[in-house]
């Protein structure tokens, strides 16, 4: 209905292959960006930044990482939390051991280290597939959890095992307020989402999807399977690593290994399933949904005048999450992104039904 595509014809392949070939989509995206960069900073409260926006953005980034691996390359992983923690501890150690290093460089290197670890744990993907691989990624989760819990060097021998991030100082500018944190994270997430989109719409993305859709055929047309899968593991872990570093440095400030436990891995997996496998947009939709529901669960009963204990609230949260996930899988197994796609198709054809 809002789409007016008549007259939007393409006279070059560059235009035909643009990320948003339909002008209305492009305008919509620019509007969203304007709201994110200008509207929200004008209006949002600190609570809004700290409780909703910042975690939402960082988890979206982690979800993009997992979606590249699982949604695009078809390699199911249950170890995202572990790769996030690699990023977080790598950044922490770089920051305290090489104090002069610029924080952006530290984040990039943290991502790089996470990517290397990801490649190591991706090696079994050559020999094993499907659920076997998913279980194998749990090995990464448990092993890495253990490493940061037991090997004290990584936590700089702090007695409690809890570590604190240094201030966010980039080229001498200190990001201190929640709004500044938000904008910092936003810039990184927008750039990395764009990069992810570029990867998946080009040669690399097609190789990943070929492996996902039919690995035998992919190999026969000349795609080296191991290299392609390992690249997916590397890129995915790079994203998770940066998300982990941001989670630790920007959102938590100080943290324990528990912050990146298996629950985190599941949380991010839920995001991409609910959001939509194989869709960058879906990562944001899923992350938004998964991070907003617990907040609503905490707020709504209190607002209705039925206060419940924290323990009950947390059990209820589990139940509702479980039920919601089943509900979504039944209603739309391909997630919000597919719902959006269907809705968009309807709007484009409006008033016709098909």
């Amino acid at each position, binding site marked *: 209905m809002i789409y007016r595509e008549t007259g939007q014809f393409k006279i070059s392949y560059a235009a035909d292959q643009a990320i948003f070939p339909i002008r209305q989509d492009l305008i919509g995206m620019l509007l969203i960006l304007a709201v994110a960069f200008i509207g929200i900073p004008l209006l949002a409260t600190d609570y809004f930044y700290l409780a909703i926006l910042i975690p939402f953005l960082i988890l979206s980034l982690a979800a993009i990482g997992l979606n590249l691996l699982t949604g695009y390359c078809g390699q199911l992983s249950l170890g995202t939390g572990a790769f996030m923690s690699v990023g977080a501890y790598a950044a922490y150690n770089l920051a305290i051991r090489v104090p002069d290093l610029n924080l952006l460089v530290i984040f990039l290197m943290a991502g790089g280290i996470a990517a290397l670890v990801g490649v190591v744990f991706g090696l079994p993907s050559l020999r*094993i597939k499907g659920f076997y691989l*998913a*279980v194998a990624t749990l090995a990464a989760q448990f092993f890495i*959890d253990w490493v940061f819990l037991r*090997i004290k060097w990584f936590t700089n021998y702090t007695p409690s095992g809890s570590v604190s991030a240094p201030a966010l100082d980039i080229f001498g500018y200190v990001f201190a307020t929640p709004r500044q944190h938000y904008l910092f994270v936003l810039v990184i997430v927008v750039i990395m989402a764009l990069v992810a989109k570029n990867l998946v719409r080009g040669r690399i993305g097609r190789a990943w999807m070929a492996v996902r859709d039919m690995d035998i055929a992919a190999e*026969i047309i000349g795609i080296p399977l191991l290299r392609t899968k390992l690249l997916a593991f590397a890129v995915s872990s790079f994203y998770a690593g940066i998300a982990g570093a941001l989670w630790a440095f920007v959102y938590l400030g100080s943290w324990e290994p528990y912050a990146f436990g298996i629950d985190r891995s599941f949380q991010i997996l839920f995001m991409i399933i609910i959001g939509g496998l194989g869709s960058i947009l879906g990562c944001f939709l899923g992350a938004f949904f998964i991070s907003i529901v617990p907040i609503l669960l905490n707020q709504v009963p209190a607002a209705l005048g039925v206060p419940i204990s924290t323990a009950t609230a947390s*059990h209820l949260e589990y*139940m509702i999450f*479980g039920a919601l996930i089943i509900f979504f899988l039944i209603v739309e197994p391909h997630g919000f992104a597919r719902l959006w796609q269907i809705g968009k198709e309807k709007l484009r054809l409006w008033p016709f039904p098909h």
Partner: protein
Amino acid sequence: MLSVFAQIYEQPGFFVEVVLGGLMAGVLYALVALGFVLIFKASGVFNFAQGAMVLFAALSLVRLMEVMPFWAAFLASCAIMVALAFAIERLVLRPLVNQEGIVLFMATLGIAFFLDGFGQTIWGSEVYTLELGVPKDPVFILESVFEGGVLVNQLDIFAAVVAGALVVVLALFFQKTKIGLALRAVADDHQAAQSIGVPLNYIWLIVWSVAGIVALVAGMVWGAKLGVQFSLALVALKALPVLILGGFTSVPGAIVGGLIIGVGEKIAEVYFGSQIGGGIENWFAYVLALVFLLFRPQGLFGEKIIERV
């Protein structure tokens, strides 16, 4: 490294103790893994909720035992697990029939989350002691063979016996009964099974019920040992490397895999763990299974896969 062998050589009795302890744990891993295998074989669903089912069953049992004798509580818990299987089949599996594997897997994750929350909401979330009337005192056995004998927990022996008995019962069930045969037919070929008149929904109900009862037994034994608490759900994750090792579809694989993992993990923990910080049993099983897989991707009992195009 050498010191380890020296240690084993010097204290063979202790080594046997460790191995036996490992075997006991392994039997329990095998029990949980069996639940996975049953469901995967019959419906192709990778049931991540098996751990939550163990917790849920143990909680039911322990809380019901507060108001009724053991046998009644056990039967009631069985009934609850069957009812649960019924609900899962009706509310989750049936609407998702013909979906891809990953979707069903996700659904079981949802079930796991739901059950964890639901169980603790209705049954409470404290640590409950499960008293089965089996003495927990350790006893010395084989004193004539090893100097100082071998220390074994009576509860572990009980657990091994129960688990072993259950495995035998299940094996008989699959090999000898009509329903068991039908289940195997389904595992081999869904369409073929349907065409010979086995209703798929019925089959699913049965396997989920059986898996529920297996979970109850596993929960009972584990609960008696560790106390009934949330961490039971995590113990079930231990069954996953067992599956990698034994193969997702092999009942003997689950048993042998469980024993290997149990023993390997105990030995590693006792002899190496202390040198690298301890607590390695959380991941050792996985890494062991992974390394193993690199050499035999189809698992211990899986068949070599010939890919066709």
